[in-house]
C-alpha cells in the first residue's frame, strides 16, 4: 500500500506531492535558506499528508475501484492556499492545502476548549482576538468530480487557462471546469460501436502548456494525435497525427506492445513533446509529424529479453518521462532502480541508481553501466542480474533548478546538483 504511484512538483518547485497505492498523498516542502544550517537549504520535509481516496466497490458492475492515486497535478497558485487535483481510476478530487497559524481566542458563547458557556454567567461582551499558534497544515477536498469515466483514468491535465482541465481514460477524454462538478464535456471518444473492433486505447493525454485549445493524446499503438478544440466540439478527428513509420520486415509479436506509449509530455516551451515507449524516449517537433527529431535509447539491451519480460508482465510496465525546466535534459526510469538522464545539448547520457545500499546521503552518485556482451567489466552489471521488481516508473524534475525526485517502489529519493 506504500508503493508510490505518482510524483509531481508544483509550479514553483517549493512543494513536491507524492501519491501512493493506498490512496494517500504526502506533500513535501522545501526548506527555506537558513544561514545557521547551510546544509538544510533545499531539503524537502513533510508538509502535509492526507487520505485522498478510499477503496470502493461498485456493486452494480461488480468492479473493485482501487484507491491508488494515478496522477496528481498542481494548480497554479493564486492565493495563500495550494490546490491540487488527485485522481484514482474513477474519481478526481480537488484538494485545498492551507496553513493556519492563528486562532481566535475570547469568544463570548464558548470556552477556549469549545464548551458552551452558560449564558446567564456572561456579564460582559468581549471582542475575540487573534493569537499565534503552531503552524497547522490542513487539507480539505473542495470538489469531487465523479461518475464521468466508464474506464480507468490514466491522465489529468490542467489547462493553461487555469479554469479547465481534462481527464482521460482508456477510450474517452473529458473536459471539466474546475468550479463545476456535475457536468463534464466529452471531447474525444474512440470507443468503437462494436467492441470486437477495438484495436487501440488512449494511454496518456496532456494540454499544451501555452495554447489552451490544443491537447495531445497517445495510444497503445505508438501514435500521438494532436487535437484543436476550436475545430469542433468533439475532437474525434485529429489536427496532427504523429507516427514513426515502422520497417515491416522487423515487425514481430512484440512490436506493437513495445511501441505502446506510456507517457507523453510537452516541453515547457510548447515547441516539442516527448513520448516514452517501452525501450526508448522520442522527442518530437510539433511541426513535424512524420518522425521524431530525436530517439533516445533507455535500455536497448532488453530487446533480447522480451520473451521473459512478456511472461513476467514487465513488458507492460508504464514508465514516465520528464523534462528539466530549460528543456535541455530528459529523465526517465528503468529497472534495477536505475534511471537515465539525457543531455540534449551535449548528446551525453548517464545511468544512475536510486538505492540506499549503493550511495550515501550527500555523496555524488556514481554512474552505472549495464553490460550486454560476454565480458563483464568491474562495476558493470549484467542484464541477467538486473532486478526487474525494482522499477522506477515515476520521476519528476524541479521546474527551475536541478533537483529531481525519483520514486523507487516505496521510497522517494531527492537528488540535487552539487553546489560548490
Amino acid at each position, binding site marked *: 500500500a506504500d508503493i508510490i504511484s505518482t510524483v509531481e512538483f508544483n509550479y514553483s518547485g517549493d512543494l513536491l506531492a507524492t501519491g501512493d497505492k493506498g490512496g494517500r498523498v504526502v506533500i513535501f516542502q522545501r526548506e527555506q535558506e537558513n544561514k545557521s544550517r547551510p546544509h538544510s537549504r533545499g531539503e524537502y520535509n513533510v508538509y502535509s499528508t492526507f487520505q485522498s481516496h478510499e477503496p470502493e466497490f461498485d456493486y452494480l458492475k461488480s468492479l*473493485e475501484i482501487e484507491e491508488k492515486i494515478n496522477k496528481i497535478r498542481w494548480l497554479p497558485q493564486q492565493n495563500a492556499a495550494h490546490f491540487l487535483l488527485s485522481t484514482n481510476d474513477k474519481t478526481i478530487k480537488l484538494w485545498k492545502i492551507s496553513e493556519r497559524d492563528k486562532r481566535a481566542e475570547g469568544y463570548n458563547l464558548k470556552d477556549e476548549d469549545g464548551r458552551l458557556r452558560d449564558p446567564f454567567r456572561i456579564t460582559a461582551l468581549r471582542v475575540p482576538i487573534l493569537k499565534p499558534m503552531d503552524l497547522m497544515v490542513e487539507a480539505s477536498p473542495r470538489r469531487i468530480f465523479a461518475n464521468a469515466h466508464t474506464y480507468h483514468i490514466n491522465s489529468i491535465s490542467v489547462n493553461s487557462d487555469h479554469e479547465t482541465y481534462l481527464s482521460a481514460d482508456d477510450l474517452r477524454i473529458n473536459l471539466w471546469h474546475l468550479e463545476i462538478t456535475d457536468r463534464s464535456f466529452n471531447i474525444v471518444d474512440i470507443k468503437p460501436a462494436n467492441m470486437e473492433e477495438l484495436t487501440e486505447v488512449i494511454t496518456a493525454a496532456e494540454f499544451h502548456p501555452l495554447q489552451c485549445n490544443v491537447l495531445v493524446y497517445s495510444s497503445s499503438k505508438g501514435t500521438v494525435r494532436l487535437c484543436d478544440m476550436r475545430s469542433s466540439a468533439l475532437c474525434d478527428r485529429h489536427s496532427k497525427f504523429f507516427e514513426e513509420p515502422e520497417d515491416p520486415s522487423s515487425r514481430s509479436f512484440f512490436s506493437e506492445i513495445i511501441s*505502446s506509449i506510456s507517457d507523453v509530455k510537452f516541453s515547457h516551451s510548447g515547441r516539442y513533446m516527448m513520448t516514452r515507449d517501452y525501450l526508448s524516449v522520442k522527442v518530437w517537433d510539433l511541426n513535424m509529424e512524420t518522425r521524431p527529431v530525436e530517439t533516445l535509447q533507455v535500455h536497448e539491451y532488453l530487446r533480447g529479453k522480451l520473451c521473459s519480460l512478456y511472461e513476467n508482465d514487465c513488458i507492460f510496465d508504464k514508465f514516465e518521462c520528464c523534462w528539466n525546466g530549460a528543456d535541455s535534459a530528459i529523465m526517465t526510469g528503468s529497472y534495477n532502480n536505475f534511471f537515465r538522464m539525457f543531455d540534449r545539448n551535449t548528446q551525453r547520457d548517464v545511468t544512475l541508481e536510486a538505492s540506499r545500499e549503493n550511495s550515501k546521503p550527500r555523496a555524488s552518485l556514481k554512474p552505472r553501466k549495464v553490460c550486454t556482451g560476454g565480458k563483464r567489466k568491474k562495476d558493470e552489471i549484467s542484464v541477467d542480474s538486473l532486478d526487474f521488481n525494482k522499477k522506477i516508473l515515476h520521476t519528476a524534475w524541479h521546474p527551475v533548478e536541478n533537483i529531481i525526485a525519483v520514486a523507487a517502489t516505496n521510497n522517494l529519493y531527492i537528488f540535487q546538483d552539487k553546489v560548490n
Partner: protein
Amino acid sequence: INSEIHDFCHLKESKEMEDKVTSPEKAEEAKLKARYPHLGQKPGGSDFLRKRLQKGQKYFDSGDYNMAKAKMKNKQLPAAAPDKTEVTGDHIPTPQDLPQRKPSLVASKLAG
C-alpha cells in the same frame, strides 16, 4: 536434381539464421512461439485490450450469498481462497472477502 534442392534448402536456412542473429527481437518471438504455440494471431489486439479494460472485475451475487446463508445455517460456509482472485461460482463470497474500507488513520511511511 537432388543436390539443387539441397542447396536451396540450405540457402533458406541460412537466411533464417541471419534473421535471428541480426534481430534479437525475432529470436525472442521464436522463443515465445515455441513456449506458447497457441498464442493469438493478433497480438495486442482485441483480446488483450479487452482484458485490460476489464481489470478488476469481481463478482458478488447477493442472491447466491443469501440462499447459501439460509441453507447452511449450522455448517461452516466455504471460505474464500487466500489470494481472493476470483470470487465466483464454487465458493460463496462473504462480506469479509470483498475489499473493505481501510482505516484512514494509517500514516504513510514517507510521512514518518
